[in-house]
Each structure stands twice: as C-alpha cells, then as structure tokens.
C-alpha cells in the first residue's frame, strides 16, 4: 500500500486509476475574441482565446503559402500557491512552444496564406495537467472561431504513482509521484500531437501509459464535443 493509492486502489481524491477529475467546458467566454473557451479541469481554471486569421503584422513575418500560428501560454500571478511573477518563465515559454506545435498539426494552415492566428492562454488557477487542459481549451476556442481544422485536439496526462500507471494526475500526485506524461491527441485521426514526460518508465509502463492516455483523451473528447454541441445547437440541459 502506497501513500497515494490505498489498499482498495483509491487515490487520495477518491478516484480510481482510470478516472478523470471533473471537467467543465464553456464556449465563447471572451466577447472580443474571434473564438474562446473556458475550461475547469480539476482545480485548473483556464481561458483560451483566438484572434485571427488576421493580417500578419509586422508583414515580414508573413509566409506566402500558409498561416503563422503564435501562441502565448501565461499564468496569472494569483494562479499558483506562491505568487507568480508576471514575467514569462522558461516553463511558460516552453509550453507556449509545444502548444503552438500541436495547433500547427491540426489547423489547415494553407487555407490562410499571409495570415497570423494568435492563440492566447491564461491560466487563472493552476493544478496538475494544466498544459493538457489548456490544449483542450485552445482546441475549443479554435472551433469556436471557425478556423478550419483537421480534427479537434484534446489533452490529458497520465502518470506513475506508487508504481502504478494512472490517469490524470492532480497537483499532489504530480509532485509526489514517480512520473508525469502529458499527452494531447487527435481522436479522429488517432494521432498523438503532444508528448512530454519525465520520471522513470520501463518500456512496458510507457506503452501502458500511452494507451491509458489515449483512453482518457477519448473521454475528454466526449466532454468537449458535448460542450460544442450545447453551444451551437443547444440542449435539453440548462448550462
């Protein structure tokens, strides 16, 4: 019996190994943006918004045959346990980069030559798995903006705690656990578009983790789909 999973296989926050934290997605939260979404993923509270495609400015940035994607992932100073300096950290710069790459993999960039698509993510409150929650929010915001995409992207981490591969680490599990692996996924094209990890994984564990991440991502996808349908076609439920 480990310290993060009890003898019945229950994690400290009451989840089983393959359970996600509660997720809530709201579309169209930033009036001025061309597309936007708000996600709560565990204690993560994140807004993503999109401007564009718009004319590249300064112009020398523009590419003749496709759009450029710019991405800023940023954490509000009050989003973390200790106040975070407003200046972008190296971590935020790296996450901006991996989010941008994921977006480049899914947008039909060739449809928007000489343009820029700006993607802005603000983490109002952070918890484990914030980059995965962010990518899901960005994907929702892109869908909301009407930009052509090959698929949606969803994100969800897996990890290793008490020697076991489990889905969707929270902050404590991320900190105390043995490994964390954020994965973003295009569910219809069945491709992984973001993958990072640290911690020790045997080859078997790695494979198990990837399969669990895909499983988790499919669940996230259902929630995202539901939010988009609710927004655009309405539903029985009150939102």
């Amino acid at each position, binding site marked *: 019996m480990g310290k993060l999973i009890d003898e019945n296989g229950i994690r400290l926050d009451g989840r089983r190994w393959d359970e996600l934290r509660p997720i809530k997605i709201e579309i169209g939260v*930033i*009036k*001025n*943006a061309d597309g*936007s979404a708000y996600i709560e993923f565990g*204690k993560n*509270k994140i*807004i993503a*918004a*999109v*401007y564009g495609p*718009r004319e590249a400015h300064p112009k020398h940035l523009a590419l003749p045959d496709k759009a450029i994607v710019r991405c*800023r992932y*940023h954490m*509000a*100073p*009050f*989003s*973390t*346990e*200790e*106040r975070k300096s*407003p*200046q972008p950290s190296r971590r935020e710069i790296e996450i901006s980069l991996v989010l941008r790459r994921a977006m480049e993999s899914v947008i039909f960039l060739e449809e928007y030559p000489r343009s820029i698509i*700006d993607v*802005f993510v*603000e983490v*109002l*409150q*952070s918890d484990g798995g914030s980059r995965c929650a962010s990518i899901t929010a960005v994907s929702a915001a892109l869908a909301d903006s009407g930009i052509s995409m090959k698929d949606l992207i969803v994100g969800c981490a897996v990890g290793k705690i008490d020697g076991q591969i489990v889905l969707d680490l929270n902050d404590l599990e991320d900190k105390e656990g043995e490994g964390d692996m954020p994965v973003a996924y295009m569910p219809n094209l069945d491709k992984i578009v973001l993958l990072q990890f640290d911690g020790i994984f045997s080859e078997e564990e790695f494979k198990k983790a990837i399969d669990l991440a895909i499983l988790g991502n499919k669940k996230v996808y259902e929630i995202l789909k539901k939010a988009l349908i609710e927004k655009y076609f309405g539903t029985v439920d009150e939102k």
Partner: protein
Amino acid sequence: MSIKKSPIIENLRKMQMIELLSKEKRLDGRSLTDFRPITIKVGVIQKSNGSAEVSIGNTKVVAGVKIETGTPFPDTPNQGLLVVNAEFLPFSSALIEPGPPDEDAIEVSRVVDRGIRESQMIDLNALVIEPGKLVYCVFVDISILNMDGNIFDAAFLSAVSALLTTTFEKKIVKGDGEIEFQKCKLPTRCIPISVTSIIIGDNILIDPNEEEESVQDSRLTLTFNDEGNLCAGQKGGSMGISREQLFKIVELSKAKAEELRSFVKKVIENAQI
C-alpha cells in the same frame, strides 16, 4: 497601445451617437448617468487569498489577492506593503499585443493603487510582523479579460471586492513564544469606490463603453471614500475640461459612488467569508 491608430468608428454611427446625446440618450439605450449591468463574483480563485470577477457590460476583469511576507520600506517600518499590478491580457482586445505592461496598464495599476491607498482602506499598520524587518505584503493582481470601456471602474471594483473577501494565515506569537497560524480577514476600514465619466461635447456620460470612449473629449475617474469625500482622481483624454463641467461630474459621481457602494456591500454580505 496608445499611439496606435484607434479603430475607425464609422462616421455615421458617431453622428448618430451625438444626435442621440443631444436628446440625452445613448446608443445602447441607457440614460447618460446609468451604469451598465454589473456583476461581481467573489471567491472565484480558491488558490488566492481573495478574488473577484467583475463584469460591467461586456467589460470583464478578475482580481486576485496574494498575501506574502516581505521587508518593509525603510521609511515606513511599521506598515505592511501594498502592490497593485494590472495586465491587459492579450485576448482582451484585438488591439493588445503581448508584452510587459505598457503605459495604459501602468496607469490602471497606479490609479487603482492610489484609490485604495489614499482611502486608507487597508489597515497597513496591522500588517506588521516584526517592525522594520518583516511585514505582510498585499499583492493585488488585476487581469483584464475583455475590454469594452471603463476599465478603471471594473478594475477598481474587482480589487476592492477581492480585498474585502481576503483572508490569510496570520502568524501569532503567543506569550510562551509558541507560534500559531490563525486564519484572519484582511483588516479593512472602508469601501472606496471609483466612478468614471467621459465628456463628449457638452454631455457627461457615466460608465462609457468602448465605442463611446473612442470619441471622448475627456475622461475623469474619481474615487470616493465612505464619507463621500474624494480620495483620488485622474483625468484622461486629450481635451480640456471646464471648471463647471468638472464640478458637475463631481456631484454626479458622488451620488453614483453611493449606489455602487451599497451594491458592493450586499455582494460581500452574501458572500459570507
């Protein structure tokens, strides 16, 4: 941001706005002294010591308070610190570029800071742990989520509401030297309220939206304390303002501040921190 070309408002629309103003009406149907609908949600960021999301019409901001320990300034060894910082998030408007705070963000920070500081809202003397050495530092960070005019009042309301609902773990040194942490409310003494108006021609418009601000002559933000005294003010805009207009704005704003204060009080009471 400020020296960029401002978004072109179609001339027609502007003429319509000015024609309506002559009948004391506004494009969105408000009277000249009406605020747009205001919502305040407190306690939205659980990891902060206090927080509030405020909407005024489509303008939306969120403020979070963090209380940490720090060293007091040498000339005020018996006072805690207050740091106010505002950021226009890059998605708040199509015109914002990411980057360090520009002059507009700095102006918002400083106007909010002065209103809170000069009203003596926070009892900074009660935030000393060891005089001259260790004090509590109150960080108020304001993120502007969506811009549709009157950022000043939205920022101010969010900061005030967040502070009014702020709690923190206070270090208590007991008689026997034992240290204990005790959850306390931030010691506040009043509810300062800022009210922003603009002048277009001869008309005074309270709570301007972005379209109105884009044709403003002048802007004036006035902050009032509980007694109805002014405690901070800032003129904006690039036209002069007459003594008479100024005095009229003071009267209008003072009344408006009272209304807003009652609203904030109700929100805070219901929040039951």
